[in-house]
């Protein structure tokens, strides 16, 4: 499981990097799907199979399909690739690179003091649902109201 964790983590990091440097938007999207699937495997190796499969269904399976759907409508060709390339100049990397490096140093600091003998216990579907509809039921209801508001707004816009 530890090996699986590190492998999936490496895939996630590398494919996310590819999302940023890729100039072809469809290829970038495929790398993003790969990255989300790798994160799902990370969840699985940490003992959360339910979260893993939801990550695959909701993020990789549903939200990214909508992204691809929009890209299909836009007809992006060579022009957008050239524009992307012009935005990927070395100069543009300095500030975000520095900020990310600061975060990385902090993260490594935290990792050094953390307890390494952590053994993940598997949390099944039943435990997650008991928590969701027990102590956290208010948050679930609020989220559903938010989604309902989005649904009504989308219906209104589409009707116009």
């Amino acid at each position, binding site marked *: 499981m530890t090996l699986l964790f590190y492998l999936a983590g490496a895939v996630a990091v590398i494919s996310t990097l590819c999302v940023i440097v890729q100039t072809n938007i*469809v290829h970038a999207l495929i790398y993003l799907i790969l990255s989300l699937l790798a994160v799902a495997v990370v969840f699985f190796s940490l003992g959360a199979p339910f979260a893993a499969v939801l990550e695959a269904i909701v993020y990789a399976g549903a939200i990214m399909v909508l992204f*691809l759907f929009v890209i*299909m409508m836009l007809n992006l060709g060579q022009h957008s690739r050239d524009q992307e390339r012009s935005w990927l100049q070395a100069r543009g990397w300095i500030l975000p690179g520095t900020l990310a490096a600061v975060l990385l140093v902090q993260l490594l600091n935290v990792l050094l003091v953390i307890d390494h003998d952590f053994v993940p216990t598997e949390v099944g579907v039943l435990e997650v649902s008991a928590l969701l509809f027990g102590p956290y039921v208010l948050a679930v209801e609020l989220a559903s109201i938010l989604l309902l508001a989005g649904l009504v707004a989308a219906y209104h816009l589409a009707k116009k």
Partner: protein
Amino acid sequence: MEIGSGLTIGLILGTVIGVAAMLIWVERRLLGLWQERLGPNRVGPLGLFQVVADMIKIFTKEDWTPPFADKFSFVLAPAIIMTVVLLSFAVIPFAPNIGIVDSNIGILFVLAMASIGAYSVMLGGLSSDNKYALLGSLRAAAQMVSYEVFMGISLLGVVALSGSFDLREIVHAQEDMWFVVPQFIGFVIFLIAGVAESHRLPFDIPEAEQEICAGYHTEYSGMKFGMFFVGEYLGLVLVSSLITVLFFGGWMGPAFLPPVVWFALKSGVFICFFILLRAAIPRPRYDQLMSYGWLFLLPLSLLNLLVTGALILMN
């Protein structure tokens, strides 16, 4: 045989792909029977070697990638459908001692693979850079995303009754009564959504020949087309075995036949039923398909779930 051993995995993989290839012949013969014509009957006994001839043809055809296509996604697309459908078979329990994985997220895994399978048709159409292909994949995207919703909700009744996402547990929960009896509405919705997900006739709107050439695989040829083709038959086998496991008691049956034979017989009946659907029902219009799904199937599946939940709470 033991669950998850290398031999079992190899046998299941071989059988599933072999059955999918044989279906090319079965479908054409059965369609011939139902439409009062002969179908392929020349090559070998009963035309059985037609499958071999088709395979040789498809493997030796020129595998042409159009120069205007986006090569990376063009090659990736047919591989996705084969991979996700074959991966879905990993959680199917074929018999008490035959299967690959017993996962406590079995059904969810199948649903996740089905939703990733949608990328295959979308990327295939998008990367072809062809009007008909793009139209086909736009239709496919909307159709598959919509029918995934009802597919998931229609299964929740079964999950609530058996109390598990594990497909093997679900089969064991049907010892007294097959779930098709208490979950008949769920079964019908799952059947319809299953046809739409594997985009077979009458729901083959993404590849409707008479309207948009061949839809998303217009530009494909050779083995890349073959993978879409076999992927479709694999999807048919998968949906049939899922119906058997979820609603018709999986491998259970009277003891005079071994369990795996019962499983194959039940799935075979559904495969033939899907082929009969193709022979019997005309293709609906695209907007009819969408409004039928969202205005009829969605409320019905939600109602089914509510009533099932209420009945479980009452007992």
